[in-house]
């Protein structure tokens, strides 16, 4: 058990707040030990009941429930409701956190830390079809543990942006003892980087070549897909096309089974992304970063179904307007409503995802929309909205319990739950 002395060493807050935390921890531990003492512990509990002060469900009706109970069973959400209206079965373990907020686990659409950072980017060619991050996942790494301490439960692990096409990303949970336990979906996306980092490849390449090269790579992939599709529709009409492992995984991309994650920012680059990938190639598009003056492209983005996942840079100083612009706020003003936030961890630590959202709000975005931008919006962007992103019956029991509004930087995540299992419990192993 943690002693007060240990806490003081780790605590980065003022003495007063430290003492408060210590007191809270002590209380929490007392409660926890109370729970341990119940006989249900002896026989494994059938489920868990979370008694909390507030549930921000992030469902379509924007439901917020005060003094609520969330029942979890078999890793799924069984019931959500006001405390008096939910009967807690007697064989359920009860987590009693009446002052806390329960929010959906955060989803980060742009992450590099669920895998080994040494394998961030195999910069063989400017476009590298055939690579994927599935092979790089490291379960229970220190960075994964750190990330979920910030309430992050699902990430899209994608390769780096040193090359225009760096491989397939993997949708992964922030908990699990093995790769199989962690992985939700592979490929989770195709990573494409336009301009910026890939320009440093070799003796510097420009946008005429990079865009040409990326396009012709994708067109090859599309042709392969169309050949197979034609064959599958009418198998008698033609010979079976040759199987090519390099191109086969692209089929899901053109079937829109998973999106393309695009490292894109700056007006012209975002314009090309929309034109080339979303409109001409018809890909489901997740625009990542979307920084600098990218927000000026909003009218074109609004003509498509692309998702805009902004970050980690939350502001942009426009030298001609001579003012700071909050990127998320400007996208919002431009009418973009499928707007989320990412960290690009480790560029910004994964656990600071809500802090990014807080910055977006400081620069003029709205807190509730920002919370949506951490949960249901990226879940939709990554096509996981049936499983995660909101607190609704039947969805996976992924959530964070916070001392207050997660968008308020003063709030702390006290408990992170993935699939019904506590993967971070501040009362046992406080990280912040």
């Amino acid at each position: 058990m943690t002693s007060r002395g240990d806490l003081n060493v780790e605590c980065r807050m003022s003495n007063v707040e430290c003492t408060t935390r210590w007191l809270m921890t002590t209380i929490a531990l007392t409660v926890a030990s109370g729970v341990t003492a119940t006989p249900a512990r002896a026989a494994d509990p059938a489920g868990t009941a979370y008694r909390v002060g507030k549930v921000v469900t992030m469902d379509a009706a924007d439901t917020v429930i005060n003094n609520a109970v969330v029942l979890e069973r078999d890793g799924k959400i069984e019931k959500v409701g006001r405390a008096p209206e939910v009967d807690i079965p007697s064989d359920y373990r009860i987590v009693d956190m009446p002052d806390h907020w329960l929010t959906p686990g955060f989803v980060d659409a742009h992450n590099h830390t669920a895998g080994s950072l040494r394998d961030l980017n195999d910069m063989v060619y400017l476009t590298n079809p055939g690579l994927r991050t599935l092979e790089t996942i490291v379960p229970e790494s220190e960075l994964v543990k750190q990330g979920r301490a910030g309430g992050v439960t699902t990430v899209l692990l994608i390769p780096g942006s040193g090359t225009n096409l760096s491989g397939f990303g993997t949708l992964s949970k922030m908990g699990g003892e093995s790769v199989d336990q962690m992985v939700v979906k592979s490929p989770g996306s195709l990573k494409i980087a336009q301009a910026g980092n890939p320009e440093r490849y070799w003796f510097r390449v420009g946008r005429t070549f990079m865009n040409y090269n990326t396009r012709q790579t994708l067109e090859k992939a599309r042709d392969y897909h169309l050949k197979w599709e034609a064959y599958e529709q009418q198998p008698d009409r033609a010979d079976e096309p040759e199987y090519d492992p390099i191109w086969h995984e692209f089929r899901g991309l053109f079937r829109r089974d998973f999106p393309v994650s695009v490292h894109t920012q700056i007006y012209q680059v975002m314009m090309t992304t929309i034109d080339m990938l979303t409109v001409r190639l018809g890909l489901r598009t997740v625009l990542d970063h979307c920084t600098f003056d990218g927000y000026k492209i909003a009218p074109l983005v609004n003509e498509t179904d692309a998702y805009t996942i902004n970050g980690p840079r939350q502001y942009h100083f426009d030298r001609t307007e001579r003012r700071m612009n909050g990127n998320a706020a400007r996208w919002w003003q431009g009418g973009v409503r499928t707007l989320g936030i990412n960290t690009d961890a480790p560029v910004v630590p994964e656990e600071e995802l809500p802090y990014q959202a807080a910055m977006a709000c400081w620069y003029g975005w709205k807190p509730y929309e920002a919370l949506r931008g951490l949960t249901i919006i990226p879940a939709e962007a990554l096509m996981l909205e049936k499983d995660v992103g909101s607190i609704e019956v039947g969805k996976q029991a992924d959530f964070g319990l916070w001392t207050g509004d997660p968008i308020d930087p003063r709030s702390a995540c006290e408990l992170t739950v993935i699939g019904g299992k506590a993967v971070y419990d501040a009362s046992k192993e406080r990280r912040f």
Partner: protein
Amino acid sequence: MNHPEWIAAYRRAGASRRLLTCVALLLAVASAAAAPPEKVALVGARIIPVVGPDVDRGTLLIEHGRIAAIGKDVKIPYDAMEVDVSGKVLFPGMIDPHSWRGLDQPNESLPVMPYLDVYDATDPSRLFFENALRDGITTVHVVQGNDCVIGGVTRVVRPIGLSLAEMTVAERVGIKLSTSPKRGFDRMLQMATLREAFLELDDYLERLAEQKYEEKLSKKEKKIDVGPKEARQRGRELIEPSDYDDAHANLVQLTRGQIDAWIYAGAATDVAPAIKIARDHGFLERTVLVLGPECFKAVDDIKASGRPVVLDDELVYRERDPLTGKLTETFVPKVFADAGVKFALQPSPDASLPERYLNYQAARCVREGLSRDAALRSITMNPAEAIGLGDRLGSLEVGKTANVVVLSGDPLNFNSWVEYVYIDGIRAYDRSKDPRLAELLGEEPEGEKKPPAEGEKEKKAEEDPAAKPDAAGNGKDATQGDASGGKSQGEKPGEKKDAPPGVRRPAHRDGAEGGE
């Protein structure tokens, strides 16, 4: 740590948020789609059509983006919007015939890259395009820079539009080549690489033809029955346009005369090889020569080739005798004008030099003794013909695209301001709504315009070598009357950043143009 206010707010917001979203979206769509008036009559100005005599106090009628009528007694349709531009001058939108400034960088690093397209790197948010409007340029031919052996295909754009689709006037206009050494190359390597590219093309086409013939036979389950030479001959007709790969498709079009050649020759010695390579591969008739200042020495060769040329923005060639130290200065356009070669001027890529203004360049020509007509054509009609759009652009004629610059005075008077720019009949620029210009000049925009202080005017006149009495039309003073469309009286500068109706263009990228 409770936030009762906004918690309550977002619970309320459930329904109203969606409503607001809808309203905001509707507004956005409505403002983006605000169509320009279909018919506009510009009344009372001196019209300089470039291809004919000037019309004093004439009317220019624009209908559906084209010039419908020009003259003194034009009947204005009842549904046309009338704009009083009396005292002003109407001039064709000027044309930048050759510029990489809309691109992220002039060239890629490999020498032979004919598969590129400037489409992939043209940035509508460049300050360059906004400045083009300010300078009265309505058409820009975006071409890769000169640091190449074979560059990509080019595109003609107008400097308005949020995307390339909106900007494009003509795509795949030309392909860039250079006979002057690329960086790191000498002349022999440059020419060897250029020759090799075309030899490789021939070889590729032969092999492709043979392959096509073989494929045809194999469909009938026959084996190849003739020698390779005959097979190639027979296979030639079997090739379809979709058979060419990216590396060769554009060069095939070039050699078939389906796309123009824009060949850069930086020095006089590079001119003959440029003409030779074009003649050898059958595209001389579709070649435009982009010349460095020294190329005037090869004027006879150029004249004999009969090709139009684009001159360097440096109009004066200076050469110092190594022995005596005597400096010889040659005014380059004069040499070409005297020889009867059709030339177009290009603005300087350096935005901080006065050579960036095409009308300044033309005025210098007049100062050096060229005819007014030749000077005006060199920034309008000649570049329009060079980019292959002479039938649509370059002059004020009935039926042509309504690209019109409304100047406060004569185009060759450097005291004249660009007041309005019409592109395809859309009012794309309005000086009274140009907050950046107002801020630079310390002027109050629209309605509160003050004449510049006398001292400033004199200073400007001194700086301007082109302010010749014969070239000057109506002076600056004529502009002081309120001749605007009268739409936006009393707007604050901050509110004027919106483009006029019908114009979609991004606010330009901030920061230095070169980098991110």
